[in-house]
């Protein structure tokens, strides 16, 4: 039976890649979210620098979902329920489905702050402990379309086995509570798997996964956390873990990834990401300058690969040639330009000659340089618009 909001797997591509979609009812409308997809990263519920009205100029909002985190909404979470609004409506996107994560994916999480009473979130007012009942209350108050089940994230490759076991057992406990207390027909729960479990203690990891899979009919997707170890993704690890997961459930890897890392993850079988990398890039006054010439849109093949050197000096404006390891039939150059640099003072070209976004159609690098150097608020807005569009197009 096709439930609304259910993930539908459409095609399997080469390797572990997949194409799928969600058909989601939100705020009186229906959103078609086709995967692989990204959720729009927000802070306190808003896309950085971008109002709902401007977002409408950047995105086709009928096919997007927003990611909202508990930590950045914590200071006002008690003000949502009395309004009767869903969190989407409260933050200014009434028709857009939302995915509630625990943490802002850009937030560095400090070890040593989780215990029996709950896990830590770092809010505007400082660290707070989130216990399972508070978590459930927030989920029920916010009414998100999708949400991450409370998870003990405090694991890494250097964790002790004891710490791993605490994490796995708590995660199962939280999952059970959520299954009992949150109505799954109303919203979709994603259980969290920590990659580090498998790296430190495969034995405990397998047990945890087995228990999770026993309950798989009671939740709707998987989050893979801790995908990067020592700043790098090991695709083999990820693929091995994903191989154990049921095909028909979506996989989401939250966090800041470079575009080629996203490609690696897609090839490993991941369906959902967030656009936190865009927020990060915009904080630096940078933009993506993608010169995508030909993209192979065929659904049945692997997705394109981009070169691995991100910070190419802007003077070398074009890199021609084939960078894909699969030898796809196109050429692309990915640049991160820092428009604060002096060289853009008199540069009257747009950020990208192949980009059709509002910013590239209307403004020159020289003007954006001026806005950034004088700390005008319009600068970040225009940059963010350009970055979001470029990111979503790639």
């Amino acid at each position, binding site marked *: 039976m096709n439930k609304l909001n259910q993930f539908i797997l459409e095609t399997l591509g080469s390797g572990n890649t997949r194409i799928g979609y969600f058909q989601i009812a939100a705020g009186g409308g229906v959103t078609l979210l086709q995967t692989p997809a990204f959720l729009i990263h927000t802070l306190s519920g808003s896309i950085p620098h971008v*109002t*709902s009205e401007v977002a409408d100029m950047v995105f086709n909002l009928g096919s997007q979902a927003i990611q909202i985190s508990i930590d950045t909404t914590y200071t006002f979470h008690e*003000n949502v329920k009395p309004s009767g609004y869903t969190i989407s409506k*409260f933050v*200014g996107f009434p028709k857009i489905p939302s995915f509630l994560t625990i943490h802002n994916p850009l937030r560095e999480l400090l070890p040593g702050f989780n215990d029996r009473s709950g896990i830590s979130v770092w809010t*505007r007012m400082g660290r707070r402990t989130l216990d399972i009942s508070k978590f459930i209350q927030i989920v029920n108050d916010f009414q998100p379309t999708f949400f991450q089940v409370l998870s003990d994230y405090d694991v890494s490759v250097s964790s002790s086995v004891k710490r791993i076991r605490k994490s796995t057992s708590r995660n199962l406990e939280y999952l059970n509570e959520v299954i009992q207390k949150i109505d799954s027909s109303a919203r979709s729960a994603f259980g969290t798997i920590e990659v580090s479990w498998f790296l430190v203690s495969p034995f405990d990891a397998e047990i945890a996964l087995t228990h999770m899979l026993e309950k798989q009919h009671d939740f709707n997707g998987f989050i893979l956390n801790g995908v990067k170890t020592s700043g790098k993704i090991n695709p083999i690890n990820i693929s091995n873990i994903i191989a154990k997961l049921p095909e028909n459930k979506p996989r989401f890897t939250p966090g800041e990834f470079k575009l080629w890392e996203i490609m690696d993850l897609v090839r490993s079988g991941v369906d959902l990401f967030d656009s936190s990398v865009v927020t990060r890039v915009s904080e630096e006054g940078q933009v993506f300058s993608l010169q995508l010439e030909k993209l192979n849109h065929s659904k049945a093949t692997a997705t394109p690969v981009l070169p691995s050197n991100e910070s190419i000096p802007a003077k070398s404006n074009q890199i021609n040639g084939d960078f894909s390891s699969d030898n796809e039939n196109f050429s692309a150059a990915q640049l991160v330009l820092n428009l604060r640099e002096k060289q853009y003072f008199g540069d*009257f070209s747009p950020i990208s000659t192949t980009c059709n976004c509002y910013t590239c159609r209307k403004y*020159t690098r020289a003007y954006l340089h001026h806005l950034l150097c004088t700390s005008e608020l319009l600068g970040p*807005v225009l940059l963010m618009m350009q970055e979001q569009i470029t990111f979503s197009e790639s």
Partner: protein
Amino acid sequence: MGPGLLEEARGLHNFMNWKRNILTDSGGFQMVSLLNLAEITEEGVKFKSPYDGSECMLTPEESIHIQNKIGADIIMQLDDVVSSTTTGDRVVEAMERTIRWLDRCIAAHKHPERQSLFPIVQGGLNAELRQRCAEELIKRNTPGFAIGGLSGGEAKEDFWKMVSISTEILPKGKPRYLMGVGFSEDLVVCSALGCDMYDCVFPTRTARFGTALLFTGQITLKHKKFAQDYSPVDETCHCSTCTTYSRAYIHSIATQETVACHLLSIHNIAFQMRLMAKIRDSIKNGIFPEFVQEFMLGMYPTKNYPQWSLNALSSVGIQLI
């Protein structure tokens, strides 16, 4: 470097891709705001950079040439501005120099056919000086006039009187631009006194600090009383902010996310435009005094109107209820 860049870009309209009107100021206000970095002589104003100590001389000619390169539709003369709380000989000197500088500006202006140069009435808070200044400026037959040197820290009672003197003397067929105004009430009262154009940082600046403008005054959304106020910022407003967001949410992000600055800036500018539209429409329909009464009652529901407003409005025959 800036003017050169704008020349290369063929003007500010192109550089910022704004197809509508632009008005530029002369740099004169910085004589007040950066007074301790400025040295004023008959030649011009010499500013010292606080960053590297370098000096730049802004003469009337230089100011006009820069404004020519910027290419704004309306440009301002370089005037000798003094703070509105200054008194004595300096005020006289500034007023008289402003007239001489106007003539130099007019002589230096390269594009009178497409850029309107406005002189600025000065004279501090001295009625006689203001009158003399205005009379001299009128002789130069410019397309419009600005009234400057006000909207500093002066008492409102003095403020309106100086505005009134200027509007009485300045020709009725040419626009009067009151610089640095302002608050909603000031816009209404000064329109009653005969001003046509205004500029002010207030609506956007106050927006960035979390304050929204309404016909009932201001609300500071950061205040915790708005935490669960789910109504729009302004029930009567149709701007994108008021049709999408609640006070409660803006309260949650005010001073935290730049989005709040944008949302309130949009609302406040929409508010100002509505206010000015109401002023214009009521004048056109012959019901301006009624509009003023309604507006002031909205701002002061207990009728504790400020004395200066009462005096100013009364001087043009408007009584409040």
